[in-house]
């Protein structure tokens, strides 16, 4: 038999955790620009860049959550079909 193993009851809790964490990052990703004197322009540019990084991080967490959800859905679909065919084959064997 294959070494494939997938427990949807365990995996199913993961997307929510990731989405919560993504939301937390989103809440903190709007940053005030500092008045840093002579370096103000550079500092503001850095802040804008950091906001971009935070957005990508949140997107990554969302993306992973979506991917896991897609895996769960794929597994559920296959599992339904497999159960049906297993039933039919057992019925044939009996």
């Amino acid at each position: 038999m294959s070494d494939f193993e997938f427990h949807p009851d365990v995996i199913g809790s993961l997307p929510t955790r990731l989405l919560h964490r993504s939301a937390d990052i989103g809440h903190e990703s709007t940053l005030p620009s500092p008045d840093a004197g002579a370096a103000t322009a550079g500092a503001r540019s850095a802040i804008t860049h950091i906001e971009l990084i935070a957005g990508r991080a949140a997107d990554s967490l969302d993306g992973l959550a979506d991917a896991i959800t897609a895996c769960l859905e794929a597994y559920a679909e296959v599992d339904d079909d497999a159960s049906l065919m297993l039933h039919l084959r057992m019925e044939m064997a009996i």
Partner: protein
Amino acid sequence: MGHSMTVDGSPASCRASARAVRRLGLEMEQAGNCLARVRSLGLSGWSGEAAEQFGARTSRLIDASDTASDGLVTFADALDARADAIAEAKAEMQRARSVAAKADIAIHGDSFPSYGEVDLKPGQEGPRDHGEAIVTRAREAEEAANTVFEAAVAAARSLTWTGEPASPVGALASPTDHLPDLTPLLRDVPGTPLPMPDRHDWSGLSSLIPALVKEAPDLTRAAGRGLGRKALGPLKAGFDQWLDDLPNEDLSIADRLLRAGFVGGATVAGGAGAAYLCTQFVVTAPLAPGCAYVGASAGGEAADKILEYADAH
């Protein structure tokens, strides 16, 4: 010309920005911790190729989160240091003003007077020199701090998010990409008709006919596997036909043999054909035995109908 005592920048503004950046850095750290838990928990209930990709992708995100967190906290520290430097420079300029005020040296605007700009009375030269030295040192310190801060700004602007490739969803975007991971599970259990890009499209079935003929011996064996204990199915189908034909006294023995053979042969051909078609698709391949059984039944039924039609006409 006097020495400017103007110090640009707002310590409060820098500190507010530092707090926000630090909070974001801590959120990134929390994200890394969350991802580590997600990876650990996920891999406790998931194994196989997709699970390995999940682990690798999560690990990339953990590393990226840690790197980003470190970078943000470092930048927050730099913003705080910048706030301190601005505050210290402002304080030093204020101290220079106090030195001048105590010596009754007139200050016009934000410029500390140089020699010649103001008429100094006896006893004012020492305090003026002292004040000028304070302003000069404060300005040098501020410039040095500014250089350090600009380096921190450059480092912050060079931060990158290394956790994800260009695709927003990434390697796990398409579950069908990882069907090989799922199909072993279905080796003994028929699967689901999901699209498989590396196999024939249904529109190409006509091209399979020559191969079907060529591989007839193998197909017969495949049908045999599919029929399993029902390997005698074709014989039984032929025998059933023989029994059906018994009442028909018009048939010769040769006719009866031909008709029974036709039904039995159609049963074998149907089973073999269906089994072969099933083997051409990854998802249906595990179904080959079942396909053979269904195909054999269909072949036998079709032969019956053909004989009925021939008899009627």
